[in-house]
């Protein structure tokens, strides 16, 4: 991030009187040695720039190659501890408690950037809902969430789910005010079909569960703040990326969320539970390839090494100086 000499030169005001001239015309006599030295300096500068570019590229390329190799290494995964398994069991219990044909509202508002972290758990939850015979209405309040929802609905339709089981409520613009509108006015007149007619009568109170696939814009917090006061009987479960955990964990602790899958290990544990009792075929079958544990662990180790290497020297020097000051 240091400023290169070229960049510094560009900031100087231009000198219109001087036209670009070859070096020999500018320097009359005895300048051969200097111009030769300049040329060598320019060449070496060019070589340094080129080699610094390569130097910056090699670690990136090496990291990519090693991550690709690591993703094929089997046997390294996230150990399922008590808390992660409990998170998966909470969601399994929330979905397992539904009766056949129970309407479930799924809000898909993940971010395209962080969705890969929760895709496995989301697809497991959708397979779980299909397996339990639930009817699912999908809604989105963010553009990125709508893009994900469209892809997931198309995937479910590809697995043979009919429109009577998955109702597309589309994208509702306006963010949290649109969420309030959904709570107060229900799904509106646009959706058609017997499932839509059933859930139109009593608004959101018709649904037996709301599953929120959260993102930065709309997530479980918006649902707890805006929907729960208006529809208190609607239980809310959530799947979120890790970065939202500090924000939403208190809601799980207070019981405002009936289930929360918020880490990759919890998502993996839940997905494995669904896969273990999934259907042999159809939308209830869950055979999604789980994220590579080896690649993630390798990435974490690289990050730890880089962070420690960059901070260790400074901290050690600081500690040494403090120790010396203490002794003297």
């Amino acid at each position: 991030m240091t400023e290169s000499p070229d960049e510094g030169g560009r900031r100087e005001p231009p000198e219109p009187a001087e036209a670009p001239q070859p070096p020999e015309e500018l320097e009359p006599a005895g300048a051969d040695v200097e111009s030769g030295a300049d040329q060598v300096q320019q060449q070496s500068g060019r070589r340094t720039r080129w080699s610094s570019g390569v130097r910056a590229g090699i670690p990136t390329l090496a990291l990519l190659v090693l991550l690709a190799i690591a993703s094929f290494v089997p046997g390294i995964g996230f150990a399922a501890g008590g808390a992660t398994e409990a998170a998966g069991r909470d969601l399994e219990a929330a979905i397992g408690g539904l009766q056949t044909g129970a309407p479930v509202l799924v809000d898909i508002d993940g971010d395209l950037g962080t969705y890969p972290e929760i895709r496995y758990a989301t697809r497991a939850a959708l397979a779980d809902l299909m397996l339990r015979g639930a009817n699912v209405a999908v809604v989105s309040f963010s553009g990125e969430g709508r893009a994900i929802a469209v892809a997931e609905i198309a995937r479910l339709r590809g697995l043979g789910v009919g429109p009577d089981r998955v109702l597309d409520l589309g994208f509702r613009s306006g963010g949290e005010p649109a969420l309030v509108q959904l709570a107060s006015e229900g799904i509106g007149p646009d959706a058609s079909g017997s499932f839509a007619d059933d859930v139109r009568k009593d608004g959101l109170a018709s649904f037996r569960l709301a599953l929120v696939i959260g993102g930065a814009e709309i997530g479980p917090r918006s649902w707890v703040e805006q929907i729960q006061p208006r529809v208190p009987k609607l239980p809310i479960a959530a799947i979120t990326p890790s970065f939202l955990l500090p924000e939403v964990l208190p809601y799980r602790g207070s019981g405002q969320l009936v289930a929360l899958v918020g880490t990759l290990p919890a998502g993996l544990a839940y997905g494995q539970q669904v896969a273990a009792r999934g259907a042999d075929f159809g939308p209830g079958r869950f055979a999604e390839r789980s994220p590579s544990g080896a690649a993630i662990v390798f990435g974490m180790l690289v990050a730890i090494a880089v962070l420690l290497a960059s901070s260790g020297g400074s901290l050690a020097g600081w500690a040494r100086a403090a120790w010396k000051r203490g002794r003297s």
Partner: protein
Amino acid sequence: MRRSIAAALTALAGLVVLVDLAIANPALGGLAGWLNRLLVLLAAGAGVAGALMLVVRHVGRLARREDQLGSVAVLIGLGLVLLPGLAPGSTGADGPAVRWVVAALLAPLVAAVLALLFPLLLVAASRGLRLRARETAVMLAAAAAVLILLLPVGGQAGAWLASAAAWVRDVPIAAVFRGLLIGVAATGALTAARILLGSDASHD
């Protein structure tokens, strides 16, 4: 006078929505719903106006020959996302062309931008180490410690790491986060109160 009318309208709208939450009254509910619909329309209008302003700004930059590459990229990107959805016969966001643009272009681009977060953090850290070495080093060491706690290690050590990670997440990180949320809420309430009381100069 203008300030008092705007402040009174803002206060009234806010009070109607708040009271509607506390009291079940159909007329009040209808009014609150109407206000909320206005808010949704306002947000949609702001979105459209923002997109139009973006186009106007970048067309203007192209006309003035300033950063032409960036402006062309923005306009082509806008066109690639908008045209397949607005084309005659398209079904909007569900259309195959839109889905293809999202899956083949938008999603990888956003994922790539997110993947740049770590290298960008490293660059920021290297600058931070030059400017404020001690503070940045402490921050980086804390980040490394959190990552170490999250490592999927088996056995007794893994159980200890997991419980330590849960404690760090539930106590210090949650405390900082709650502090931030309370601070943001208090600042928002203060700003709202200043607007409602007419003591905010920027409200004119």
